[in-house]
């Protein structure tokens, strides 16, 4: 799987997804649970806004000095005995990993959850080398055994499936006979894939944050699978987006505090692991060989663009968990491994407008995402920037461009606008009857699909006010004669004029 997960057109995708009431229910429930937990955890920590500001500044500092920290990180990984590879493109990254697979004649790879390896379509590359790849994160595992169903959430990839559906998948694909009890299913999968950990030649992980001062990579997980994947196989390959660095462990502490609370509403996840290079002679366990693949894949371009802020992202999905559009269409509607507000910003940047031009419009600009982002990314502003970009590139529909031009022409001329408002005030109440126009096409048809049109009040405000103005002479007279502030008649302007 690469970043793009569907060839169906956007509108059809959301239509299909919205018919899935199971999905919608589980997304809504999960959203509410995660939103509430996040809020509780943030409140319990206290001074949440200051923490966010701190997180933002750390991320900004790293981005502003990325060359320095990349160099420092790379030096320290090598000092610790690891290999570092800078991949400009996703092909370079997969080529490098493919070489290792071939060199080691690897037959089995275990992976822990990693968005960036999905972004580069790593699994397909591994498999074309007659090498088996097993996703060991439970959510990813469910999707993998379900014929590689695309993820619908960056933290909880199988969010769109309920336990009964998961039980069905396990029964069909891996011979599970038990109930839909999550603990029972988890126990089954643990036993089912234990031998894979033992047999695997290579373990592949992502990297939540790399610590530049020590050359360590950190992994924030809940299942312990990443620890097995990095300690049992002889080779460990970590893949990271080039922006995912913190200067020292002190900043790691802050970022992990923000990440765990924002992602799952907990002070900490089950496992927070830091790995520095391959195992040393006196180490009990760990890989004998460690590779760090640092991926650019368009990130340098983003860094130099007006979208730079998006690189602060720590993939917590707080924005996804609060997005009302995501709530109704679900993650797979986005057609990208990155869904929700972060996906709508990131996917067009990494994958281009050809495939992802609809995503920036799947947003009411409500800004709920901005408010929950632990590193204060102005997500809705960036979505608006995408729209602006597409206007400049003339990707937007011709009819829309013409309508907007006409609107702006009218709106920039006070005289024309004045006439338009007055005429509009007269005409609107005559044509809108019972919440409908005589002919409901185009924009009106879209609007009236779910709701009625408003019943206009009649006469435009500006006509009413102008008539009041005409009565001003009388008002002044009243002031002079000492009759102050005559009670205005709310609804009738005619008697006002008569005064």
């Amino acid at each position, binding site marked *: 799987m690469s970043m793009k997960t569907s060839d169906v057109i956007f*509108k059809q995708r*959301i*239509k299909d997804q*919205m018919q899935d009431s199971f999905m919608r229910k589980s997304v809504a429930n999960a959203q*509410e649970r995660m939103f509430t937990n996040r809020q509780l955890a943030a409140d319990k920590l206290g001074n949440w806004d200051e923490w966010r500001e701190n997180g933002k500044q750390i991320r900004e500092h790293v981005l502003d000095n990325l060359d320095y920290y990349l160099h420092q990180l790379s030096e320290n990984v090598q000092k610790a005995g690891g290999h570092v590879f800078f991949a400009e493109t996703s092909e370079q990254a997969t080529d490098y990993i493919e070489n290792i697979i071939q060199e080691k004649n690897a037959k089995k790879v275990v992976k822990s959850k990693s968005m960036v390896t999905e972004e580069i379509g790593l699994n397909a590359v591994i498999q074309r080398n007659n090498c088996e790849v097993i996703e060991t994160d439970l959510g990813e595992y469910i999707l993998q055994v379900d014929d590689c169903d695309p993820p619908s959430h960056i933290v909880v990839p199988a969010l769109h499936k309920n336990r009964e559906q998961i039980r069905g998948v396990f029964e069909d694909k891996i011979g599970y006979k038990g109930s839909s009890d999550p603990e029972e299913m988890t126990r089954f999968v643990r036993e089912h894939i234990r031998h894979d950990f033992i047999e695997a030649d290579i373990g592949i992980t992502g990297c939540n944050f790399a610590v530049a001062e020590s050359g360590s990579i950190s992994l924030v997980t809940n299942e312990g699978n990443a620890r097995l994947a990095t300690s049992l196989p002889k080779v460990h390959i970590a893949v990271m987006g080039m922006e995912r660095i913190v200067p020292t462990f002190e900043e790691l502490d802050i970022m992990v505090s923000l990440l765990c609370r924002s992602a799952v509403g907990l002070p900490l996840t089950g496992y927070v692991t830091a790995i520095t290079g391959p195992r040393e002679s006196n180490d009990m366990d760990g890989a004998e060989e460690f590779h760090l693949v640092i991926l650019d894949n368009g990130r340098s371009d983003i860094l130099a663009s007006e979208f730079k802020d998006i690189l602060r992202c720590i993939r917590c999905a707080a924005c996804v968990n609060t997005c*009302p*559009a995501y709530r*109704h*269409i679900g993650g797979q509607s986005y057609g990208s491994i990155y869904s929700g507000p972060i996906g709508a910003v990131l996917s067009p940047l990494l994958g281009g407008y050809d495939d992802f031009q609809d995503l920036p*419009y799947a*947003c*009411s*600009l*409500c*800004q*709920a995402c*901005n*408010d929950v982002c632990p590193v204060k990314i102005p997500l809705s502003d960036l979505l*608006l920037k*995408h*729209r*602006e*970009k*597409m*206007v400049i590139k003339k990707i*937007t529909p011709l009819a829309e461009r013409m309508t*907007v031009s006409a*609107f*702006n022409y009218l*709106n*920039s*001329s*006070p005289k024309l*606008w*004045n006439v338009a*408002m007055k005429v509009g*005030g007269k005409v*609107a109440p005559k044509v809108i009857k*019972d*919440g409908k126009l005589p002919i409901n096409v185009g*924009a009106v048809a*879209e*609007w009236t*699909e*779910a*709701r*009625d*049109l*408003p*019943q*206009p*009040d009649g006469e435009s*405000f*500006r006509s009413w*006010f*102008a008539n009041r103005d005409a009565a001003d002479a009388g008002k002044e007279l009243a002031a002079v004669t000492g009759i102050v502030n005559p*009670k*205005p008649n*709310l*609804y009738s302007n005619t008697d006002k004029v008569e005064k």
Partner: protein
Amino acid sequence: MMKVNFFVTCLCDVVKSNVAKKTVLLLEQLGCEVLFPKEQGCCGQPSLNSGYIESSKPAMKSLIRAFEGNDYPIVTPAGSCAAAVKKYPEYLADEPEWAARAQAVSDRLFELTQFIVNELNIVNVGAKLPGRGVYHPSCSLIRKLGVREEPLKLLGNVEGLELVGIKNQETCCGFGGTFSIKMAEISGEMVKEKAANITAVTPDYLIGADVSCLMNIAGRLSREGKTVKVLHIVDVLMSNVVDDLSQSTITSNDSLTVEVN
């Protein structure tokens, strides 16, 4: 007497003109003299929120010019339009002179409840409206303008009005301007959920400070044949001068209108 400029906004000018009229009357009752600079147009949201920043600039400048005739505060009964104008300095950043002019206008611009509570220092306008009301805190008010407490303070002092909370109260109603047309499917689902959460507490009124959101939710309530009366906050604050609003037979379809006697 404090002089204020009124920024009517296009929806209040043409569609919900009673909201605009009542806003003027309320401000007058509260001791303001209301001026209406006639040269004003629309804030430009349909164009700006679709990304047509460059071609919106003449209209933005026209609106700025319209309010430069004096230095009095500018008041508007629509949060999203206020929020849009407050972004002008950012949109016009490439033209420092215009950015500064935009900033000056933006600094004088207040959403209605913000103006009444923070500038006039009034929290009780002497309104009376018996019944249960749900207040919809629009995205523009709470997240873009940071106006969270002001409407509640005003509503809290309305005699007889009981405010009831709803599930996911601060979630967007799904309007989003052109979003409601461009992504009508998603917008429709959002407003359906909002309407369901509102009707679940069986209120007499739905009250908000953004005409556009109210139009959206009212349109859905009307489609469902629900009898919740949809009121702009100014309808509520002016309800002292209307005889027995609660008894009038207003369907949600035309509930922004108060019956003319």
